[in-house]
């Protein structure tokens, strides 16, 4: 495990009108690790992710990528850094096939014409690299895929671009037991390949199954960022619901160092 975070946020504040959603949030993501981002509904998980992805500009705070301070003004800036977000609703086109979806918006061309062969090769290579063998054909429409397979395609789409940070927004929320296991295995594999993975989840079993670190948000504040091995299931639940758990968490509204 390397010690320097690939992506680091410091003192992020974000308000929507009169509502302050994020208060002085610090968040670090390390390469080769799965960082679980947990928190109750409305704790600010999605907002934080959208700030990282450049969809919402934050009001104040610092954004460091690979140790250098950067400014992310839009989704394209984030993508250029190597930050990819897989949204809960997947953002796949049902009427396109797997290869077409993976390259959507970034198609390879040979002159005027789409370079289907190269795209198919790269897609196949990426899926093989992720040890995905469940799809019948790369040319089948996404509409004919199962929920787990769709999630796989969405994740493969995110890692196709040599991305360094992949953020997964509740990837297992709509999946069955077997498919959840498949996707979690894939998440673990991504981290083992050296990527920094952020996993947003409500499911404590999933979080403890794959994550190396857990970051708990409570009412827009970072309650704690801890190593998964240092905490128990119930401590995390307390952090999520009350913002503190014994020595851990927010003390009188201030963040304690974990």
């Amino acid at each position, binding site marked *: 495990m390397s010690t320097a975070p690939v992506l680091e946020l410091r003192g992020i504040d974000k308000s929507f009108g009169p509502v302050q959603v994020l208060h002085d949030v610090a968040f670090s993501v390390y390469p080769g690790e799965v960082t679980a981002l947990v928190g109750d509904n409305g704790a600010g998980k999605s907002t934080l992710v959208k700030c990282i992805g450049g969809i919402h500009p934050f009001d104040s705070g610092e954004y460091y990528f690979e140790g250098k301070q950067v400014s992310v003004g839009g*989704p*394209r800036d984030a993508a250029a850094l190597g930050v990819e977000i897989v*949204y809960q*609703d*997947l*953002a*796949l*086109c*049902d*009427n*396109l096939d797997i290869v*077409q979806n993976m390259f*959507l*918006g*970034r*198609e390879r*061309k040979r002159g*005027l*014409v*789409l370079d289907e*062969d190269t795209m*198919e*090769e790269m897609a*196949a*290579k990426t*899926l*093989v690299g992720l040890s*995905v*063998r469940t*799809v*019948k*054909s*790369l*040319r089948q*429409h996404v*509409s*004919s895929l*199962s929920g787990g397979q769709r999630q796989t395609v969405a994740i493969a789409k995110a890692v196709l671009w040599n991305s360094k940070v992949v953020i997964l927004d509740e990837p297992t929320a709509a999946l069955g037991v077997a498919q959840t296991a498949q996707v979690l295995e894939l998440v673990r594999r991504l981290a083992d390949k050296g990527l920094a993975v952020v996993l947003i989840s409500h499911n404590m079993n999933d979080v403890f199954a794959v994550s190396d670190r857990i970051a708990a948000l409570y009412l827009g504040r970072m309650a704690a960022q801890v190593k998964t091995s240092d905490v128990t299931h119930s401590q995390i639940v307390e952090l999520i619901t009350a913002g503190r758990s014994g020595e851990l968490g927010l003390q009188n509204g201030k963040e304690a160092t974990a």
Partner: protein
Amino acid sequence: MTTTTAPEEKAVAPSAGLNKQVRDYVERVRGGELGALPAVIGLIVLCTVFAILSPVFLSPVNFANLFTQGAGVTVIAMGLVFVLLLGEIDLSAGFASGVCAAFLGVLLTNEGWPWYAAVAAAMLVGVVIGLIIGWLVAKLGIPSFVVTLAAFLAFQGVVLILLDEGTNISIRDSVILAIANENMYPWLGWALVVVGVVAYAGLQLLNNRRRAGRGLVTDPLSLIAVRVGALAVASGFAVWVLNLERSRNPGVISLTGVPVVVPIILVLLLVWTFVLRRTRFGRHIYAVGGNAEAARRAGINVDRIKISAFVICSFMASVGGIIAASRANSVDPNTGGSNVLLFAVGAAVIGGTSLFGGKGRALDAILGGAVVAVVINGMGLMGYSSSVKYVVTGAVLLLAAGVDALSRKRASASGRR
């Protein structure tokens, strides 16, 4: 995948036999992906019925008539496919073609412009109409149904203004008249068949070889042979019939050959098929039609795609208007009016383009256009009154939309949507 990975590491098997392809096709149809099937079956049934009821239907004269009768609607339908692919509708396409035809007539006959300048001006009018409609839909966010319904009404008035409250402008330019009234030399028809079939076979084989060289999935040779064979037989038969003598008095005037409008439609088909299947722009059209939000997140400029689709639609409407003017030898307030639009939408939908967006091909317009042409032509031969024709046309459009909706339902039930 190159030599770096072992064969068992491949995500998919590299070969698929003809049997498997046929089974896959049956599977797809059962799952609600009907494709061209309804149009082809409809065409066979209609032709059989009309052939039995009216002996004239199968005569070479009538066969040639089918092409010139269906050409205008087919071309407009091909443009509509782009708009329908986005899940939008253009109700003004019929009268847009009328406006463009009126511009053509006025410039050609009244102003004495050369044919190429008048044609270019008519096409430019089409592009401008598409720009305005597309801008209103994409940027202002007015539903396309409302924008084009308003345009549908307004364009009727524009045609009347251009034609001085409804006078008929006759077209006398020989080049414009040739589009829908002249035929090609018989040998040129055969040359087209040979070139087309050889080029098609060559492209398929070349594509296969390139893919095989990279270890990708290839179509079996038998399937390619079937496709090329089908194209050769169909086009060969059509050209053979069209090259038969159609004149009642061959001694006085000979009437043979493929109508000039056929190669024009084929070129349009090739161009738009290429755009839709091989270019980034075409891929983005499908993406926006399938899931506009996903397309937006992928960095695709959804507004630009929408506007271009409406521009293409109105441009094709202008071409349809030119063909209609040529066929009628004149432009009148009814050019592009009455049921031209319904026929065009019907043609696209019958051919397999979905009204819900995301599914459709340029070829659909030709297949559906053929069905529509056979219906109009057959009913004309049977001597039905226009009241019956309207009812039947409405029924056919409803039937096509019903098939579309049912196949979509079926597809979602079988997990294909």
